[in-house]
């Protein structure tokens, strides 16, 4: 006989509306379930009402944090269907912004991890350093978060030498800070105590559940869309796919921190090798896309992002489908919480939950929760039953 604890939809550990249903016996989790229908908006249907160009701005707002990945994927897909290719300089610039967004996302995540394990000073330090990346984003694209940088046919703004210099010096400074955080995660006893051997996902399990991104890479799967299915100029810019075999939350933290360093190197390399030339091919604001279908994949900060587009020759998409990385990883999350062979304690749930870097707003557009007909108490019910 277990007790159900609802975590969410409004809960201090995570600002996003998600309901984690945990069945516990004592301190131990015996069953878990996720309900993320609270942020379902119906974007896939709405895209069918927008023109291809308007759709880009809606796709960007599927998720604020991975907006660059979404817009890159969308523009690649539409350019493929149109038979247009962005100029090489634009592709390099897209890569720079994509990697900046990855640095931002991973640092945000590191701050949230520190917050989840109660390490407030690390949270504050990481968030202070994250602002530098946001400043660069603002100068480069015009907005701190929702960039609107990619357009069909190229990018909006060019980078000038002064800005390039600022990008370099800021990233150089950031590299030192991130190395410091890496050391801290490696050595600090309080971080290790909360993350080592928490949220185990073995390699075979990760493969079976189709885990993607840092979750898969921390379980030893060398899978990165940037290396396996190169888009933009990823086949020209060298980088290492970071993998670890620890299969736990600590490993996921390390993979992300290492990826920040890799991203910094990639941006530096891109700035060194960026060719001059145009940044944009002009595409009229309302255009028709020839009939056909296509898929595009990019490596978002959270893992593989997949878009499918079908056009019937009109100026609006016939069908647009998105599969976000968190949806692929939620199966792994539920498995990690439910696993019977290892004790999972309630106190570890936030860390396990956080370790997949959940992005519910991405997912809820498509996610289906599974509910097994048992009555679930909500916060108010719990308060009431205590009162009686």
């Amino acid at each position: 006989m277990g007790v159900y604890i609802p975590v969410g939809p409004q809960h201090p550990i995570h600002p996003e509306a998600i309901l984690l249903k945990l069945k516990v016996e004592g301190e131990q989790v015996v069953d878990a379930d996720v309900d993320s229908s609270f942020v379902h908006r119906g974007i896939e249907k709405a895209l069918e009402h927008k023109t291809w160009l308007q759709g880009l701005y809606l796709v960007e707002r599927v998720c604020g944090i991975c907006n660059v990945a979404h817009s890159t994927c969308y523009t690649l897909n539409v350019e493929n269907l149109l038979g247009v290719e962005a100029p090489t300089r634009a592709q390099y610039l897209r890569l720079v912004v994509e990697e900046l967004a990855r640095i931002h996302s991973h640092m945000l995540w590191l701050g949230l991890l520190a917050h989840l394990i109660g390490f407030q000073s690390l949270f504050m330090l990481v968030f202070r350093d994250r602002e530098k990346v946001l400043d660069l984003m603002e100068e480069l694209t015009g907005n701190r978060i929702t960039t609107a940088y990619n357009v069909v046919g190229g990018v909006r703004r060019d980078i000038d030498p002064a800005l390039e210099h600022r990008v370099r010096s800021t990233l150089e400074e950031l590299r030192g800070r991130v190395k410091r955080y890496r050391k801290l995660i490696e050595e600090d006893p309080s971080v290790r105590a909360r993350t080592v051997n928490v949220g185990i996902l073995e390699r075979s399990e990760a493969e079976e559940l189709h885990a993607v991104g840092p979750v898969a890479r921390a379980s030893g799967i060398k899978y990165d869309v940037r290396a396996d299915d190169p888009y933009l100029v990823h086949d020209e810019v060298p980088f290492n796919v970071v993998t670890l075999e620890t299969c736990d939350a600590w490993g996921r933290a390390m993979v992300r921190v290492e990826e920040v360093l890799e991203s910094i190197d990639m941006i530096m390399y891109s700035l060194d090798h960026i060719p001059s030339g145009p940044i944009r091919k002009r595409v009229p604001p309302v255009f028709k896309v020839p009939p056909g279908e296509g898929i595009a994949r990019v490596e978002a900060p959270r893992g593989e992002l997949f878009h499918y587009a079908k056009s019937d020759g009109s100026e609006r998409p016939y069908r647009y489908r998105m599969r976000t990385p968190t949806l692929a990883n939620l199966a792994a999350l539920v498995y990690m919480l439910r696993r019977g062979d290892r004790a999972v304690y309630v106190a570890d749930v936030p860390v396990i939950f956080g370790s997949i870097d959940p992005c519910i707003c991405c997912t809820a557009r498509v996610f289906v929760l599974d509910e097994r007909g048992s009555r679930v108490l909500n916060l108010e019910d719990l308060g009431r039953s205590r009162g009686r």
Partner: protein
Amino acid sequence: MKLLTRLVNWGRSRSLWVLLINTGACNACDIEVIAALSPRYDVERFGVLLKGSPRHADVLLITGAVTRQVRDRLLRIYRQMPEPKYVVAVGTCAVSGGVYDRCYNVYKGVDEVLPVHAYVPGCPVKPEAVIEAISVLRRVIERGEFNGRGKGG
């Protein structure tokens, strides 16, 4: 008596505890509100504390167009807050639905569900705008508007 009311309003305006709730936003406004709490902007200078429970909060910061599923939960959270309570719609989609205007599962803005005291448009809002919203709210409370029961109950 009047002096006492003014004193109470003065105190209230200097310790606004906020509750952040995402009602279907894209996360961008959420992280900007969190950024407002981070060292660079530090809204705690104004006595603002981010709270985890509606029962401790005076101000409800709502990000995101309200989805159908979250509407009833939002009303429940609102009812749990003690009087006087204030609602701030953060971000364009909380103000009016914004770019989600053709989505079948959203209401067009928070004010279809709750009375709103301050609108902060922006996509996403900058942390400065969050601070601006707090200071606007402070001025309003100090002047004694929206006293007692929240606007529209």
